[in-house]
């Protein structure tokens, strides 16, 4: 597919020409995938893979350099008692928290992601968003999680949203760009599919569900639509784009459902931290507790894992 003129009309024709999403069928498919039973060796492999896919996140007004550095240390070695436990994929913080995190992560292979572009609302002038992005990259972030302007998207100003993503992508330089659709504010699954394609066409390396700051965060059906979108986009363009559900994924059971969904929809090419991430904070501890249960044979308790 070639889109050379992203003028509003052409983009609209393209996005509105995508196949519709039937909510009932989508949700029942997602629920059915959620009933897959993953046990024993399969479960152990799934837990380690899920740990490697975690974007360990803290996005609080109360974040401090000390807290972020502790989190980064945990990212490198999630289970200090077990050296066989893999590190997570990345640490995800606000731009101001990038420098302290970078001190810990430098050279480790664990990525450093920063939210940018007036996260979480996206309600700021473009130059502010671009400066936000450049600063975060300059401070050491190699992944940028931007938010789209939901207002512009819902108003049908697809060209504006498109151009903004293109501009941010340029500001990212070598850093990978994750585009947050904030699916909880898009209103329909059709919009999730359209926003996914819009972001991919504009150059997103990843599409991400949510900021975690609105009530409706990642869900299995929303992620299913996005997985179908990246699958179809690669089939048409040859370019693979990653997917990151974020917010609300707290248990191993949840995480495994996502892995099953990848396996049975987009395919195993996406079963890799380079192509799939979990934006989460408390998920990691549950994964670690389940991992401990499998390795030791008894149930673990939360007091044995650090809170941040």
């Amino acid at each position, binding site marked *: 597919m070639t889109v050379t003129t992203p003028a509003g009309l052409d983009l609209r024709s393209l996005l509105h020409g995508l196949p519709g999403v*039937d*909510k*009932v*069928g989508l*949700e029942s498919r997602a629920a059915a995938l959620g009933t897959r039973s993953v046990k024993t060796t399969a479960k152990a492999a799934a837990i380690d893979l899920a740990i490697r896919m975690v974007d360990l996140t803290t996005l609080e007004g109360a974040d401090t350099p000390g807290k972020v550095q502790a989190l980064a240390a945990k990212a490198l070695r999630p289970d200090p008692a077990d050296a066989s436990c893999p590190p997570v994929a990345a640490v995800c913080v606000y731009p101001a928290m990038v420098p302290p995190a970078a001190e810990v992560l430098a050279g480790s292979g664990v990525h450093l992601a920063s939210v940018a572009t007036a996260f979480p609302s996206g309600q700021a002038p473009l130059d502010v968003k671009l400066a936000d992005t450049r600063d975060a990259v300059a401070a050491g972030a190699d992944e940028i999680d931007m938010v789209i302007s939901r207002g512009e998207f819902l108003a049908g100003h697809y060209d504006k949203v498109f151009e903004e993503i293109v501009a941010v992508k340029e500001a990212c330089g070598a850093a990978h760009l994750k585009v947050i659709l904030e699916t909880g504010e898009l*209103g*329909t*699954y*059709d919009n999730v599919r359209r926003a996914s394609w819009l972001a991919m066409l504009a150059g997103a390396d990843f599409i991400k569900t949510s900021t975690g700051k609105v009530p409706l965060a990642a869900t299995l059906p929303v992620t299913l639509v996005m997985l179908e979108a990246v699958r179809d986009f690669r089939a048409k363009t040859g370019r693979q784009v990653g997917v990151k559900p974020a917010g609300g994924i707290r248990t191993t059971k949840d995480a495994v459902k996502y892995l099953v969904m990848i396996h049975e929809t987009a395919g195993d090419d996406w079963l890799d931290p380079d192509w799939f991430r979990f934006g989460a904070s408390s998920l990691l501890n549950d994964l670690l507790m389940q991992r401990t249960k499998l390795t030791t044979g008894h149930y673990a308790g939360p007091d044995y894992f650090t809170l941040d």
Partner: protein
Amino acid sequence: MRKTYKLFIGGAFPRSESGRTYLVDGDNVALASRKDARDAVTAARKAQPKWAAATAYNRGQVLYRVAEMLEARRAEFAAVGVPAAEVDAAVDRWVWYAGWSDKITQVHGSANPVAGPYFNISAPEPTGVVAVVAPASFLGLVSVVAPAIVTGNTVVVLAGAPQAAITLAEVLATSDVPGGVVNLLTGDPAETAPWLASHDDVNGLDLTGVSDTALATELERTAAGSLKRVRRPAGTEIDFFADPGVKAMTAFLEIKTVWHTKGF
């Protein structure tokens, strides 16, 4: 002047293709053959989709018009021996069924509260082409034809009393009933009915007018070949003056249930 009673097929009045006639009260009446029955089924099938697709309002008006024309031709029925009270009742019966056209769907259909996010409704639709062995009584004839066609079926009727039946055909032909919706054959039902019962393009069989039990059983058994809907003869003498209820209509209706997902 004596007239020849011909068949009524596809809105026209042909002689039997066999050329046969028989005498009824001194009148010449066409003696239908199996090929006439076949032609009548072809005409009924051809007319059926359009008749079923007509609005219920339209079908109701057409049936009401039949009642008006019947009323206007009362004398002709008296002339072939139909008692006045029966003609009056037949007029009322047409009016009664005419009014059902846009009500049976509501009375016999439903919105179904299924346990899930689905729109789900059931509505009756006509069975298709119905072969009718009519009773000899004129009111009986009207009481099997009107309920079958008001819902959108088309019929091939084997008349019990030929002169009254063909006089009704003349009423129908001068009303607004589209050709082929009602086809009337005169002759010997024992000869023609088996061909209709075994015809694969007939969907329903009304045996109300069959008084010979062995014939009725044989016709029902034959109809099983293509799983026709069969309305059996009443075990006892039918009082056609009584309230007919809805069963004469529902016997030749199919319930279609449509599901659709709900969601955005």
